[in-house]
């Protein structure tokens, strides 16, 4: 890719996974108990996408990364204190609900609008990244809808790897059944990739990176306009937590084989 990619990552925040998530009814529809008070993290699937984006950008000169996020901006700001230290990006923030009960259709509409309004974005270099799922609901369709709205026909879901070629084309590994990958070649951008976990570890915090990012992150948060999710007629008749009981246990120095064995036994019970 001669001038580098323009990579736009779509990702929002979810409650910290260690918290107890309890659905409740509110006048505005279903919500999670104490959701606004619980600490939040960047959606893990979107995080993988972001790390992959930054990694790709660092390898292809001239590339640039944006993170587009629809979330309550005060909470997003808290999450940025961690995320902004990990990799370089420019934030595009929209102040709106990040609840898992939002309609994917409305969220995708806002995201697509925001992507389109990024100044200087070059469609011929555009890669839209996101999670193929979300830790808050996992509607599994948000990114497809974003792609459709942007008129991007080359879409890949459950992506674990992208390998770019000098001519701008790239190879993509998508998850399929049985722990196997489907290998595709794409002739070049624009394309949309919904990431699975990818292969990268979580980058370490680096406050120097954070300080540099903050120059654009804070103004972006201040500018963030409020967006209400368009009502699409979606109604929830009832919400219940998953049936299985969550049993969190902390175990030290346990070999992987033993952990696997225990899970197998547990499933068999």
């Amino acid at each position, binding site marked *: 890719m001669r001038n580098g990619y323009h990579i736009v990552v779509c990702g929002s925040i979810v409650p910290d996974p260690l918290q*107890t998530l309890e659905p409740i009814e509110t006048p505005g529809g279903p919500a999670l108990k104490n959701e*606004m*008070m619980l600490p939040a993290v960047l959606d893990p699937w979107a995080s993988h996408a972001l790390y992959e984006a930054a990694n790709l950008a660092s390898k292809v000169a001239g590339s640039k990364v944006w993170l587009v996020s629809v979330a*309550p901006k005060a909470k997003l700001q808290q999450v940025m204190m961690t995320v902004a230290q990990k990799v370089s990006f420019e934030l595009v923030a929209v102040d709106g609900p990040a609840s898992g009960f939002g309609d994917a259709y409305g969220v995708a509409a806002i995201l697509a609008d925001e992507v389109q309004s990024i100044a200087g974005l070059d469609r011929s270099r555009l890669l839209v990244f996101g999670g193929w799922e979300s830790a808050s609901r996992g509607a599994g369709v948000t990114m497809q809808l974003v792609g459709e709205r942007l008129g991007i026909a080359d879409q890949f879901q459950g992506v674990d790897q992208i390998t770019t070629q000098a001519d701008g084309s790239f190879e993509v590994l998508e998850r399929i059944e049985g722990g196997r990958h489907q290998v595709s070649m794409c002739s070049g951008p624009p394309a949309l990739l919904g990431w699975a976990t990818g292969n990268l570890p979580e980058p370490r915090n680096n*406050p120097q990176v954070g*300080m540099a990012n903050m120059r654009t992150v804070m103004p972006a948060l201040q500018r963030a306009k409020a967006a209400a999710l368009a009502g699409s007629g979606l109604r929830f008749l009832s919400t219940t937590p998953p049936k299985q009981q969550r049993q*969190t246990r902390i175990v*030290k120095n346990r070999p992987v084989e033993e952990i696997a064995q225990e899970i197998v036994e547990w499933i068999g019970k």
Partner: protein
Amino acid sequence: MATAISAAPETLHTLPTDLVRQIQWRFADRYDLQMLIQSVRAVARGPVARLVAAGGRNSHEWTEQKSELLEYFDKSGITAVFMEPEQGGFIAGPKNLALALVAFELAWVDGGAATGSLAGCLALAPIHERGTPEQRDHYMRLAAPAQPGEERRPWRGAFCLTEPIPYVGVDTGMLNGKLRVESWNPGDEPILHVEKRGRFITNIGFANFVTAAVDSADPRIKGSCMVILEEGDPGTFDRGTPTRKLVHQLSSTGDPIFSLRIPASRIVGGYDIKDGVIVPRFSHSEVIEAVFRRTRVTVGVMTAAKLLSAVEPIIRYQRGRFRGAEMATPGSIRYELGLQQREDALHRLVDVWAAGEASASLGFAASRLFDELDPIEREIDEQLTQRGITGARARMKIFREAWDEAVKLLDLPAYDAQRAKLEADPMLRFVQMDSLADVLCPATKLWNTGFGSQMMREAVSLMGGYGITEDCPGFLGHKWMDSQLEATYEGPEAVQRRQLSVTMTNPVFLAQFRNWVREMREIAATHPGTGACTLATAMLLWLWSIDHLQHTSDADGSKLYHSARQGVTFPLADALCWLVAARCQILDVLELERRGGEDAALADGLHGLLNFMSDLCHVQTARASGEAGRICAELVFGYNRHPAWDAEGYKSCYRAEDLDELESIMPGIAACALDVIATDGSHAGKAGPCAGCAGLQQFQVLRSRLDICLTGCRLAKDRAAEAISKIMIPEALDYPA
């Protein structure tokens, strides 16, 4: 708070989040610090916690695994916190609050890791505070972690003051480390010889340089100073054997021996040559005073972190205590609440939490104060230097003159226009803040670590037998023991009390303290639930007592308030610490109310959070006031001799026959008379006639008022306890145990 009380007041829903802390501890606008916290937390709850969980504390040696932590510190920005951006750091301006936050996050998991990181700063601190610009630049750059693309290992430092017994420990006056002139060719820089032995020196296992306190043993060198020693200097740089510590094992400690040749340019702050004598610009105690003044605050913050870190593991332990028992089925009270069905378990946890809040509030208030003070101190220093006023005595004279002016202005009502002068005049601002720093620093070090270690013991006991095992979630047993070290190093409690006994009588401090009484009453008017009114009364009692003790003698006519009379000055210092900490806690809750209301992310639970935090304040002010009242009463009455059944004592008694006569004139008087001597000389069987309170009536009025001011405090405790039994906590601790 100020709102009307409903039947079931709104209360706490979740543990306080980062946002809550940012507001309370006043860094909601500092994203550099917010990021720093996240970065340090990842190290603390990641590699540090894993090392502790894996038994890394079970050795005295400096192991490879422990050493790896230093690299994590470098990469996460912890090492660079102390540096200026141009030296490789990323935080501009004063860094006291930043360092306190680093200490807080690391100590949340392990005190030794915190100490290891802080000791590096402690080694640099003499150079930072009093070094020449060249020294500062040179060593700060060396100690900064390598920038991307740079191939360099950062230098690590140790700070060496303490010497083998019988030499310097607490008493910085008695130095055995010696400095001589080894060679001095005319026109060249003198070469010096250093002999220094250290005891309990942190970071010595790997230090590349050491800042050491030494005294002159040569007529060609005047007085004491601090010098910088480097690993490669000619001579002996022996790190000694590791100290067999019971605590803080993730830091390196040992007893080194140095016998080295160094150029005179290594004298911290430089030197002048006067009449053929090397005169260091700063004595070792001048350097150390500037250093400890700041670093002691961070130590106090460490213990606060431990108390607050204990809350979540204790709640989880209490709730899960009976799960798995046949009778404890999900949904039953026994299953859901476990030990939290029991009032005492909850009440004691409230005490731990309240103490944690108060100590954190005090520690962060002190560190913020130093951030404010730093630039003013430098400005004043420059001003005085320009005016040619350099000696400590000459400067003290100037400061004392400013004291009078500052007190006059502080005594004016808050609305008096003249008061603005306090803010506008750098010298007046300086003496005001300086007098406060002189109290808040030792108070933080003394109270947070001393009382904190007592409360850590309480926390440990709430975990039952688990508390004193290595497997205790949150490492509470380690934290308890560690807090004893925090109470000791950088000057044990006695040193802090000694300092307080001087600084708390500074008229500028006392003038501010008097204003705090008014401030607390005003707060109480709008926020009665905080216990501010009780605190105001306790403050008055303390003021009355210190004034009384300063002007009174004991039963033998010896002066009471006197530096040698530690039995008087030290407890009074303790009492002050309780009050100062409780005040800081209240102010932080007020800040939370003020700023929290503006923050959308807090809107949901703010009201309940404020109610709970106010209840904790009330619990803490009650305890603080009780302690202060007890201490003051003991001092005010305790130095008077109790009357005996002797001629002197009889003077205060009625004779039975006199009473009979009086009874006919004033019926009922006999029932009021305290001590009566019967005609046969017999009297009630007790220590002596009851002691009177001549001259102390005002104290008595205040003391009994203080007791009555405790009204409502146990209701607050009940509410806080109830809240704790309902609060939602995460499913598991976010670091291994």
